[in-house]
């Protein structure tokens, strides 16, 4: 038990490694997939932020097989943002499957005797109703000792897409999971596994059994192979002792394979002796076995209040971005961009409601409620409570409560408009050179010398004295860009006052959006530049991309679940530009996936550009 009475708990984030999640290319070619920014923060930040709101959660472990340094910066960021929680990255040196890594690091997970622990996949986007799920988990049994081994967060998906996921059949009365099949060939159920679990520590005993079974199975296979192969001196286990033990978890682990269960490991150093048998697939080897044993339950998320999306293909990050933004526009509008400056960011004694008290730079705050956005009425929760919960952010109340609390600060900062630092200013100047400045144009129009004297000599040319005297109309220039909420704009991004951004747009740090640019349903990543009068729809603009003027970067639009459609021969529904892609002016790039560092000199449609 922790000091405040809540049970001690932990969480594990399964972040995978560079060799998996290939469908997320080309975005994962430049940044590890779990760190790809969605709605302005790394993909797994959303999981961390949701976990941080669980009382008693003291530690979050990242398990994966990325290089050691990959998550250093992320971990130090979240350590600052969520000071009450310890973070660690545990590296698998060999990919052990979704469950193998978890099992391998079980001592780390069990240290401190947590009452339960969360396991979340990195490649999902959700509102993560973890508190409700935990309440359900605890409601299943009266005492922690008899709590179920596992609670799965489930959600309903369209029937035709269900077979891409792990499908659950549950008892409608008790929510017990009766049957579990990973990616069934025929339709089983539209209730699927979201990749969010609460486990009881005893689950490791079950996993040990699963691992042992696999070892036995493989030894047996090897034995059978050897019977027909050359004679060997290897000792052969007595087949009579290999009887299965009917998944009795409490039963001591027995196997002729001795070294495994008592070797000492150190997660800092390469672990010895991993075999194929150590690969544990959480879904196939563990969950399927737990189904029907009265030890696994499903918490079904409320599809009206909450959302869930898989993040498999690169294009699905666009749908996830949209879902997060729309969710926040209902629950936490203070996270969205607002006109009028940097709000309270970058100011140490102010509070960033997203990042906690540290007030690290993150997002703009939204403007006072306008027609275009929906704002829920401020909740009656005392503001101070939200402010004093370090590193916690309550999706349900905190957003609107803090919103009202920051109004004054916002007013103070209203004077500070979109600021441009020196580098950005230079960039703007450099790139707008070929655009004629708005000058007062001559009425005479023709600059051909001698044309006027020739009036008498050539009637053909001048019988029509009509001459282009096109003039620029004086028009009031807007003082700030048009934002259609929900929009997140990083404070260091520059948006020209004549640009129109939103809905469903995230603009990353130091991105530059020039005059007359239109962006909606898009992610514009760090330090990319979109030149004047270009339109970007349903697209992801990678880091440091440069888009010329009068371009059209466009996708057809992504549907949440259909975006995952078929692994092969799939239709591209969003344009994704990898890192440092350059698009020449006046080009159309439609439904294309462009790998990093490409320069596009003409228009493309429905292509993958290597």
């Amino acid at each position: 038990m922790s000091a405040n009475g809540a049970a001690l708990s932990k969480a594990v984030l399964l972040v995978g490694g560079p060799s998996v999640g290939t469908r997320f290319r080309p975005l994962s070619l430049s940044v590890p997939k779990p760190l790809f920014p969605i709605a302005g923060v790394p993909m797994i930040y959303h999981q961390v932020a949701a976990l941080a709101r669980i009382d008693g959660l003291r530690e979050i472990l990242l398990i994966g097989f990325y290089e050691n340094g990959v998550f250093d910066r992320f971990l130090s960021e979240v350590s600052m943002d969520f000071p009450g929680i310890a973070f660690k990255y545990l590296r698998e040196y060999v990919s052990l499957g979704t469950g193998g890594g978890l099992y391998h690091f079980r001592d780390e997970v069990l240290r401190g005797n947590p009452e339960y622990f969360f396991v979340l996949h990195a490649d999902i986007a959700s509102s993560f109703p973890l508190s409700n799920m935990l309440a359900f988990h605890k409601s299943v049994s009266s005492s922690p000792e008899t709590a179920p081994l596992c609670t799965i967060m489930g959600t309903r998906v369209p029937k035709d897409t269900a077979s891409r996921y792990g499908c659950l059949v549950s008892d409608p009365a008790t929510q017990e999971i009766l049957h579990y099949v990973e990616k069934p060939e025929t339709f089983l159920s539209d209730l699927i596994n979201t990749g969010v679990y609460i486990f009881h520590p005893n689950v490791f005993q079950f996993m040990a059994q699963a691992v042992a079974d696999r070892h036995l199975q493989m030894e047996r296979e090897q034995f059978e192979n050897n019977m027909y192969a050359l004679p060997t001196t290897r000792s052969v286990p007595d087949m009579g002792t290999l009887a299965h033990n009917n998944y009795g978890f409490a039963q001591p682990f027995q196997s002729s394979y001795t070294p495994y269960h008592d070797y000492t490991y150190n997660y800092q150093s390469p672990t010895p002796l991993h075999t194929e048998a150590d690969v544990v697939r959480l879904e196939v080897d563990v969950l399927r076995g737990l189904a029907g044993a009265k030890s696994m339950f499903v918490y079904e998320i409320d599809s009206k209040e909450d959302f869930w999306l898989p993040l498999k293909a690169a294009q699905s990050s666009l749908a996830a971005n949209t879902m997060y933004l729309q969710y926040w526009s209902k629950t936490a509008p203070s996270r969205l961009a607002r006109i009028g400056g940097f709000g309270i960011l970058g100011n140490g004694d102010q509070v960033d409601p997203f990042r906690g008290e540290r007030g690290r730079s993150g997002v703009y705050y939204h403007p006072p409620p306008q027609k275009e956005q929906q704002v829920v009425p401020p909740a009656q929760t005392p503001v101070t409570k939200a402010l004093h919960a370090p590193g916690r952010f309550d999706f349900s109340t905190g957003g609107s409560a803090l919103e009202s609390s920051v109004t004054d600060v916002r007013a103070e900062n209203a004077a500070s408009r979109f600021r441009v630092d020196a580098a950005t200013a230079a960039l703007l100047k450099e790139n707008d050179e070929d655009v004629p400045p708005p000058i007062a144009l001559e009425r005479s129009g023709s600059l051909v010398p001698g044309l006027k004297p020739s009036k008498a000599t050539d009637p053909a040319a001048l019988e029509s004295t009509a001459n282009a005297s096109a003039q620029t109309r004086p028009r009031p220039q807007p003082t700030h860009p048009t934002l259609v909420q929900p929009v997140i704009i990083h404070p260091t991004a520059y948006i020209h006052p004549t640009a129109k951004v939103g809905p469903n747009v995230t603009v990353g740090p130091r991105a530059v959006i020039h005059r007359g640019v239109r962006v909606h349903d898009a992610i514009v990543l760090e330090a990319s530049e979109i030149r004047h009068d270009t339109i970007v729809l349903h697209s992801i603009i990678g880091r440091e991309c440069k888009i010329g003027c009068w371009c059209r970067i466009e996708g057809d639009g992504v549907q949440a679940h259909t975006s995952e459609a078929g692994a092969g021969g799939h239709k591209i529904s969003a344009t994704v530009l990898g890192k440092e892609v350059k698009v020449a002016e006046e080009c159309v790039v439609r439904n294309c996936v462009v790998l990093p560092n490409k320069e596009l000199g003409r228009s493309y449609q429905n292509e993958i550009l290597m």
Partner: protein
Amino acid sequence: MYPSKFKALILVGGFGTRLRPLTLTKPKPLVEFANRPIVEHQIEALVKAGVTDIVLAVNYRPEVMAKAMHDYESRYNVKIHFSVETEPLGTAGPIALARDVLLADATPFFVLNSDVICEFPFSDLAAFHTAHGGEGTIMVTKVDDPTKYGVVVTKGGSSVIDRFVEKPQIFVGDRINAGIYIFNPSVIDRIQPRPTSIEREIFPAMASESQLHCMDLEGIWMDVGQPKDYLLGTSLYLQALADRDYALAQAAVTSSAASSATSPTPVPSPSPVASSPYRHSRTASQAKPPRLVKIAGPPLCRLPFVKGNVLIDPSASIGEGCKIGPDVIIGPGVVIGDGVRIVSSVIMEAATIKDHAFVKRSIVGWHSTVGQWARLDGTAVLGDDVHVVEEVYVNGAIILPHKEVKACVLSPQIIM
């Protein structure tokens, strides 16, 4: 020299289906080319060559044209007759039908197809015709791909036409019929008032008697009868205007240099090449005197936001931060918003292009609207009063009048 009171027949003909959807709104001769009705280009050039009577052979909505022609009669001091075909008479039939006017006296008469755009050198044609004394002269123009056309083959070294070869498979020549002729009145005797093709029946007969001559047409030539050629013709026409302006400018500078040379204190005059703002500089030795382009039209627009050859009606208004050209024509009363890009396109009268839109290789019909951040490309044609909603991409589509385009049209198709 030659009689100066010519007559002319303009073959307007059918419904102009190839130039739909524009011809759903106006008869083809009244569709503007470079901000003036196509037929006005022809009438003006004919009048300049001394034509006093013009017959329009029409079978399509003559009442719509009557008023316009009435205006031209007073403006150009010319008599315009309508020859209404009650049934299609081919290309030669209208000539026979118009015999009352064309046979009024013994002077030759011009015949021209209504959708041809060129420099219309009618005076030169008449002079050439009178000089050779044959019964008829047709203008020929050089093309790159003669296999698509009827090729004119002359008798070696002379201007006398030997024969016509329709769509030759092997190269026999690269001169094709430009659709502009001059005939002696005696030609009418060759034509029966029945459906007759002048090109396929009358010309071969005349050629066999060595009565038909041809004359090379210098400068541009384009049949603007369909959207793609209309746009191509526009760019050719604008280039001709640019060449004309350039020649005029050079002539002016040269004459001022000549006059200053005689003055006691010669003022150094700028080199004609260097003073030209829109020509790449060439050394004086390379520069040859430009051909004097005799084409009618206003001077091109040379403004900072304009690239290349662009014609903008003075009543149009252009927003800030636009880039317009090359090869763009903007009609009267057109309103262009801020940050608009227009390339190789024609914007008809009273159309509106809203902020940040992009229009390339397209025709925007009268009173049409292109919304903010919308994009037209690939020979898109908007008919009269078509509205393209903001952010929509229209690629190569033909939109009939009074439509609203709310969704992207990505492949060439016709929106009814």
